[in-house]
């Protein structure tokens, strides 16, 4: 307790604390069921985390696959376009008449 507390109010406060001291004491043994409940919550938390990780990995793989597909489509279209700078209609006429464009 604080030694500098000499006012009547301070002493009254200290007396109140002394009177209620037993209610502040902690318990030494956990109450029945606390350990099993805590372990069950820990297990549930761990499962939830694993599920979230799994979902996260799946989402990542799905986005990667989508990215690969998009890249493939883009590249194949780009390769097809390498025939020249003509409009598709003009290009088909050129191809039909077998006209060589240098």
């Amino acid at each position, binding site marked *: *307790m604080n030694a500098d*507390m000499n006012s009547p109010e301070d002493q*009254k406060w200290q007396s109140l604390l002394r009177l209620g001291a*037993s*209610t*502040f004491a902690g*318990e030494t043994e956990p109450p029945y069921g*606390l350990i099993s409940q805590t372990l069950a919550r820990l297990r549930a938390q761990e499962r939830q985390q694993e599920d979230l990780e799994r979902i996260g990995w799946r989402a990542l793989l799905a986005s990667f696959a989508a990215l690969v597909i998009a890249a493939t489509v883009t590249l194949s279209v780009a390769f097809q376009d390498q025939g020249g700078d003509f409009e598709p209609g003009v290009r088909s006429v050129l191809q039909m008449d077998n006209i060589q464009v240098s």
Partner: protein
Amino acid sequence: MDDILDVDGCLRRWKDGDEAAAEELIGHLYPVISKIVRTHLPRRDDEKDLVQEILMKTFSKLHQYKGDAPITHWVSRLALTTCLDRLRAQKIRPEIRRSDLTPEESDVFDAAWLSGSSPDASGAIAARDLVDKILASLSPEDRSLILMVDLEGRSLQEISETTGWTISKIKMRLFRVRPQLRQMIHKLEERK
């Protein structure tokens, strides 16, 4: 306390999935957590619920424990922070008046001068409820600080280690809150 239990071994076993190790750790940490929760939280709050919340936090943050101090110190800090968070969520009550006291609390307040003998259980509970009511009008930090100093008799250094506050901050808080407390008790005396 840490000498009795092989905490490092327990932690290793728990990380390897051994639940018996978790049980041992909970049994070891429970008295420390229970003491902090009982001291810093009002009597009527759900103690078991909060103890469990602290235990959950302890296990989910175990990877942050470096082992440079006893685990009980680390858990004490975590428990106190959780109690302060809970107190912050509660509304700070306006200053207590004499008319707010129950007849039992009023009797205990009047008899507080004559506290040479140990009170009976109901007297202790009334005194505790009165202490809770008086402290409810302080900020959570001030409330906890007063209890650490006046009830637990902790040194400023110990408080600093538990709370992470600097010594000067603690002194400043005490300097500010002590007159507030005196004034509240004085007003309760006046309104008899």
